[in-house]
C-alpha cells in the first residue's frame, strides 16, 4: 500500500481546500482525513473537499468523509464538497451526507 503520497492542499484566507483524489477509497485515505482534521485544528473557517479527481466514492470513502464531517461539526467549521460528480452527488444525498455539508460546483 502506498502511504507516502502527498495530500494536495491549498489555503485561501480562512478557507482550506483539500483534494480528495482516488486515495479516499482505500484505508490509506485516512491520511486525507488526518489532513482535513489538521486544517480544522489550524482554525480554518471553511474546509472545502474537492472531488475533481475522484471518479467514485465507495464505503471506505464515505466513512472517511463522515470522520471529517464529525470533526468539523465539533469544531464549528463549515464543510463544502466541491466538483462532485453527479453519481457521487446522488450517493451523498441518498446517504444523508448532504445534510451536513454544503455542495458547490
Amino acid at each position, binding site marked *: 500500500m502506498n502511504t507516502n503520497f502527498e495530500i494536495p492542499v491549498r489555503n485561501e484566507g480562512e478557507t482550506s481546500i483539500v483534494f480528495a483524489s482516488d486515495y479516499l477509497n482505500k*484505508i490509506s485515505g485516512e491520511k486525507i482525513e488526518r489532513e482535513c482534521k489538521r486544517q480544522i485544528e489550524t482554525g480554518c473557517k471553511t474546509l472545502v473537499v474537492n472531488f475533481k479527481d475522484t471518479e467514485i466514492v*465507495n*464505503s*471506505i*470513502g*464515505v*466513512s*472517511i468523509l*463522515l*470522520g471529517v*464531517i*464529525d470533526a468539523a461539526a465539533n469544531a464549528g467549521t463549515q464543510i463544502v464538497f466541491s466538483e462532485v460528480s453527479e*453519481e457521487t452527488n*446522488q*450517493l451523498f444525498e*441518498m*446517504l*444523508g*451526507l448532504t*445534510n*451536513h455539508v454544503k455542495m458547490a460546483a
Partner: protein
Amino acid sequence: MPDNQQKLIHTFSALADLGQEVAHKNNFQEMISTSLHLLLGSLAIMRGGVARYSRFGHELNFLAVRGLGDDFPLSASLEISDEKEFLNAGMTDIEVSQAKMLAFFQRYQKVLERKKIEIIMPLIIRDELVGLVFLGEKASGEPFTDLDRDIVRAMARHIGVGIHQRNLMVELERRADENRRLYDDMRLTYRDTVKAFATAIDCKDKYTEGHSVRVGKYSEIIAEELGWGEEEVEGVAVAGYLHDVGKLTVERNIINAPYRINAKESAELNKHPGVGYEILLPIHHPYTDVPLAAKYHHERLDGRGYPDGLSDSEIPYIAKIVNLADSFDAMTTDRPYKRRRPANEVIEDLKRNSGKQFAPEIVTAFYNGMLTELTGKDKRKRFRRLLGREYMESEGIVPLLKQALNGMDGTSSLTFIGAG
C-alpha cells in the same frame, strides 16, 4: 438510477469488499479497521466500534473505533451473565434504547447515550460470543430500517468470522509454542538421561573413564564437519554416548583386565555390540539408527570387523562415524596394557586405515575438524579440552594434518580393501 438501486449497489459492493478483507488480509488490525470503515460507510453511520471479547478475561477490547472520541473507554468488563444474555439474544441487533433491562447496558448506559450509540450487534460464531459491534446514528438522521439491519447483520457476521479466525490462529500458535517447549524439554531430559547412562557405562571401566562421552563428542564433530543438520548431529552424538551400553553386561574383570585378554574373554567382550543393540532397540529414540550404531561400531569397511563382518555399503553410516570416534579415543587414552599414542602417530594411523577400517570422507571430516581448531578458524577448543592442550599442540601436527588431507580422497566411501 433509482435511489434504492444505487443504495443496493453501494451496500453490496461494501459487503463484497468486506468478504475480500476477511478472506485475504493478513494484517488483522488493518482488516478490522477497514471492515469498520466499510460497515459505517455502507449505511453512512456516523460512529461506531468493533470490540473483541475475551472469554478468559471476561473483557471487551475495542479493536477499532470511529467518531467515538478520546474519552470513550477502549476496554470494558463483561460478566458471564452478560455473555449469556448476548448469546440468548443471538446474532441480532439490539437497540440500546430498548435494552435497559440488560445488566451490561445498565452499567454502560451513560457512556452509550453520550456517544449516541443506537445499536449493538453481538458477534456470535459457532455458538461463541467473539465480540460486539457498536453503531451510532445514521448521517441521514433516519432510523435504521429492516433492510439496514439485515445489511448490518450480514456485515457483522463477516467481521465476527474474521475475529473467530484470528482467535483460532492465536490458539493454534499458542499450542504449537507449548508443544515446541514440551518437545525441547523432552529432548533435554532424553539427552541428560543419555549422558547419565554414558557415565554409568564408563564407571565400569576405570581406565576408560569418560570414553563414551568423548566418543559422543568426536562423533558430533565429525557430523558437523560433514554438514549434517542440528538434529542429525545430536543423534550421532547420542549414538556415541550409548555405543558401549552393552558393556554393562560384561564382567568387570574382563573390561578392566590389565593384560591382553585371552580368546574366551575376547569372545565375551565382543558380545557387547549385539547386547547394546538389544538394550537400545525397544527405546523410542528421537533419532534414527542409535541401536544400529551400537551394534555395528566395531565393523570395518574391509569386512574384518565384528560382530557380523559387514563390509562398506552394508555398514550403517552412523556406525562408521562412531567407529572412527571410538578408535580414535582408544588410541589417544591410556589403556591397562598400553599408553596413549602420540598425536602424529594417531593421525598417520587413521590415514593408513582409511578405506580399510574407516570411511575416507569421515577421516577427512575428522582431520578438518582438528585443523580448523588448530588454525584458529574454529574458536571452540573442543579437541584441546578432550585431549589436553599440550597433546594437541605438539609440534608438526598442523603440517601433518594438511599433508594428510592433501593425500586423502574424501569423496567416496570404500576405496580400497587392503590386506590390513
